[in-house]
């Protein structure tokens, strides 16, 4: 089993070197890095305020001075988008990562231990999957309120079941392999086998999962904020920039709608493509069949 996993990886790597330059990977990672930098550094480099109003320039179209235009109160949309990006990333990234980690740890335990633990976990997963993830997150917000920590928890909870399912399937497969049996025969503890033997052999699916989950986390956070349940105005979030004024003025000022949504879409797109490339990389057997 260990060999079967390891050899194609090595062969794959050498083939990649001989191939042409992976432009898509470069473009995607550049975009993601730029977005992250924009979110982290943007607000501190850009001297403008996201909430400063200026009636003289209200609803002005994109220009050299205001690259994304201004809104109905004359606020600079580019600055607001930078702050919104920061807010979105500060909720979606921790939320997505926490959801992935908790989900895969639970899935690891369920897939390895099976029995009662697994049964209960599976039922828990079923309960959450029976309800749309956006609705799960909304219920959390309804009860705990729309603060940043609560939003991170809401995003994480809504993503946990996917992690459990993916990781459980992988752990079930790996824990049946000979090297796990060998470790057990040598007297290794359950935790040691899980963390040292099973987990490292499930890293492929986890990497794919993490990437897709980060995209999904951005989707859930911006969706919540769009529905008015997430980040509350006047704090800008990429989701709540599309509600309120944007939905009233979009016919006169389409830029109110276009830019925030474009950033969200680009980020989700990048994470999805990244997840897909990771899936190809870790499981080349699927390459010929399931590429679509």
């Amino acid at each position, binding site marked *: 089993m260990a060999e079967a996993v390891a050899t194609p990886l090595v062969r794959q790597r050498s083939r990649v070197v001989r191939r042409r330059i992976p432009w898509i990977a470069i473009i995607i990672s550049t975009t993601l890095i730029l977005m992250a930098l924009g979110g982290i550094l943007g607000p501190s480099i850009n001297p403008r305020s996201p909430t400063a109003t200026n009636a003289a320039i209200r609803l002005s179209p994109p220009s050299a001075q205001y690259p994304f235009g201004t809104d109905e109160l004359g606020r600079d949309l580019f600055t607001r988008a930078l702050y919104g990006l920061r807010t979105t990333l500060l909720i979606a990234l921790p939320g997505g990562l926490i959801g992935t980690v908790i989900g895969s740890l639970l899935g690891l335990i369920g897939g390895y231990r099976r029995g009662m633990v697994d049964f209960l976990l599976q039922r828990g997963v079923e309960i*959450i999957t029976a*309800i*749309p993830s956006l609705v799960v997150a909304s*219920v959390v917000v309804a009860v705990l309120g729309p603060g940043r920590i609560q939003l991170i928890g809401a995003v994480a909870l809504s993503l946990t079941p996917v992690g459990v399912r993916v990781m459980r399937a992988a752990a079930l497969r790996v824990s049946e392999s000979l090297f796990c049996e060998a470790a057990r025969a040598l007297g290794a503890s359950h935790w040691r086998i899980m963390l040292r033997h099973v987990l490292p052999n499930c890293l492929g699916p986890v990497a794919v999962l993490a990437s897709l989950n980060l*995209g999904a986390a951005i989707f859930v956070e911006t969706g919540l904020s769009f529905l008015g349940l997430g980040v509350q105005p006047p704090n800008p979030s990429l989701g709540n920039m599309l509600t309120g004024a944007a939905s009233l003025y979009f016919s006169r000022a389409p830029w109110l709608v276009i830019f925030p*949504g474009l950033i969200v*879409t680009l980020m989700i797109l990048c994470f999805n493509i990244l997840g897909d490339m990771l899936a190809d990389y870790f499981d080349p057997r699927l390459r010929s069949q399931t*590429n*679509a």
Partner: protein
Amino acid sequence: MFVQYLIRRALGGFAVVLLATFFVFIFIRIAGDPAALIVGGTGENITINPQRVEQVRQELGLDKPLIVQFFTFLSGLVTGGLGNSYVTGRPIADELSVRLPLTIEIAFLSEFVAWIIALPLGLFSALRRGRFTEGLTRVFFFIASAIPAYWLGLLVLIAVLLIFGWRPPLGLVPPTQNLAVHLQQIALPVVVLGFVLAAGLVRFIRNAVLEVLQEPFIQVARAKGLAESTVVFRHVLRNAFAPTLAFSGLRVGFLLGGVVIVETTFNLPGLGLFFVDAVARRDFPVIQIAVLILGTSFVIINLLTDIVCSLLDPRLRERG
């Protein structure tokens, strides 16, 4: 037996929904006192009259033990008394009788549009394997799965307005009153949601068809001289259909989440908008009922797809 298997699944499914409702129920009551919310509103600085809170608590039965409250809630479900909204005071059942049909309509039509987009695209790209079709489905898949429905909805509204100078008529008209206007109001959200849903479906259909094409019985069908169209429609599609149906059954949660989003984007007063408003105002009875309905529809639809799949594919009947 297959029937026993179905019954077991149905019971399990409803147990899951009941548990989900129970958790939401407990969660809400642990987090805060609904009576204080009703009296004080959601504002932070409003002084709350403790006597009034106690009175409301008794009126709503919130002073009873949690288990008693939960069973009161359950018996209400059976008798049809779903309770009143905390915010408007109106019976929830009345609201639902108006809102549910709209939501069901949007959900079904969107799923239908998704199939109409995905079936030809997925089939075509699987049957004519090549760089072009592969690229086409790839691009479609990535774009459609990355665009959030709310943004696409707004973009479509802008595009339609700027190009045709048209926007959907305001104020929802029921189909019985004026079908033409109703369809105009519902067309855009349905197309938007259908497009978003089609993303995963295209990819799944393509893979399902590719898998069936490798089966020996396809080779047999070709070898005995069947026309390629007969092979595709009688054998490939039929066998690829069942797994695709099961797949879309499992994605009902995604569909319903999408309905919540498009209802808000296009301001259509269905269950989704009802739920969103309820969350914003912390109208807990409504949230509870909405979760229950969403969960139940997930269970029911998956049972139905299970039955249909086993009718289509006798091999599936043997499990259980």
